[in-house]
């Protein structure tokens, strides 16, 4: 697991695009949605940061065949998949710390008055991240990264649109139609979906020609 996380973090710091995303994403969201919907904004930041961090290593397979290296190392394919799914929670924790510091600085400098820690958003964020990665991961473990990226963009844009709607329109927007869903049910559904997705990814990746 440590090897997979070392790889992902090393790649993150080596990628100019990822560093730019990490630095500019928060100001971009503040510019787009303002600081009035502070809770939704915080949720949007932690979910999409975690999502991007989790998928970032796959993007290196578009230009190269680095999966040959990882799969030539002493690790079984099933473990690569399991560690990837587990690492999402590590990135979620990293994101909470990173976003917390970043947003705290924004508050201190009086740039905007935003949440830098919101437990309710974190609780909603966990199943949201689980559902979005559960949809995308099997695609990356089965198909060429270039094809899987299409599914990634669909999930990313859908999430972004839903969050944007929630931030802009509040209870009058999409949330009005989702208000009947209880958080506990979402948690259970996310957990079931995540486990099913994990099993599917293990089966697909184990039987795939790299």
């Amino acid at each position, binding site marked *: 697991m440590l090897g997979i996380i070392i790889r992902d973090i090393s*790649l993150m710091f080596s990628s100019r695009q990822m560093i730019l995303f990490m630095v500019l994403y928060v100001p971009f969201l503040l510019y787009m949605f303002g600081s009035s919907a502070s809770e939704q904004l915080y949720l949007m930041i932690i979910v999409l940061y975690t999502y991007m961090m989790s998928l970032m290593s796959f993007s*290196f397979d578009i230009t*190269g065949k680095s999966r040959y290296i990882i799969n030539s*190392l*002493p690790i079984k394919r099933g473990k690569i998949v399991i560690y990837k799914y587990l690492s999402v929670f590590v990135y979620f924790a990293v994101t909470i710390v990173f976003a917390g510091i970043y947003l705290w600085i924004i508050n201190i400098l009086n740039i905007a008055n935003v949440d830098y820690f919101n437990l309710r958003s974190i609780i909603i964020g966990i199943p949201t991240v689980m559902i979005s990665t559960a949809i995308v991961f099997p695609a990356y473990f089965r198909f060429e990264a270039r094809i899987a990226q299409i599914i990634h963009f669909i999930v990313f844009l859908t999430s972004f649109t839903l969050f944007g709607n929630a931030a802009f329109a509040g209870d009058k927007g999409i949330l009005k139609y989702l208000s009947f869903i209880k958080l506990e049910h979402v948690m259970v559904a996310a957990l079931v979906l995540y486990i099913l997705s994990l099993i599917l990814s293990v089966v697909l990746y184990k039987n795939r020609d790299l």
Partner: protein
Amino acid sequence: MAYILEVNNLRKEFKNFTLDNISFKLEPGYIMGFIGPNGAGKSTTIKLIMNLLKKDGGEVKIFGKDHEKYEKEVKNKIGFVYDENYYYEDLSIRAMRNIVASFYSDWDDEKFNKYLRDFDLNPKAKIKTLSKGMKMKFSLAVALSHNADLIIMDEPTSGLDPVFRREVLDILYSVIEDEGKSIFFSTHITTDLEKIADYITFINKGKIVFSKPKDEVLESYAIVKGGLDILNDSTRKEFIGIRETKVGFEALTDNIEKTRKTFGDRVLIEKANLEDIMVYSVRG
């Protein structure tokens, strides 16, 4: 005898190519050259051995153990070098080392740093800034730094200039001499193998042509040169492959005695090298 690498009836089917029940064995402490033209199935075989491709049939045993069932255990003792750089280009040598080292139970940092010094590699350099030869040396440094017993190399000298190629071969030779490791080395540059290989396995169109000790291969084949007047439908069949010119022919035989008896002084029989054997066998 315990083989370090044992491939039995290995099969893999693609739309336009089939690796057809190939078999060969490598004993500990030897170098096996895996030769064949481009598209013969060398890289496919190596990817199957490394479990990067899923086989359709047959078995691969490494250190006497099934390569899928004991994947982690056997890969811990395999050093690999591929024909292209598959390492993350944006990372530095040091960052890549940190990733790779965390997977091996027997990673030797002292050895790795020694190789970096010997190969003149700067640990801070990004992999994308290295030349092809330097990337190959980096791959070698990684492959040799975790006490592997088997080094698997897919076209390691391809695209390198003769000086670099010689350097790589010298390194491999010293590894074998000093540490008694086994090397499985695919290439279409057969001259490299004449210097270092103990065994030669020749693959063509997905089938093994032969897998024998190098000296036996070189002794059993010969180049036959003669005039066109001795060639007819019957004599042509005596040869594996023929090249005809306006003034005569040059052919490959694997039956030197019979050729000598049949043609006597009318032909010149010379030693064949691996390139001759490969070219005439492929061209026919």
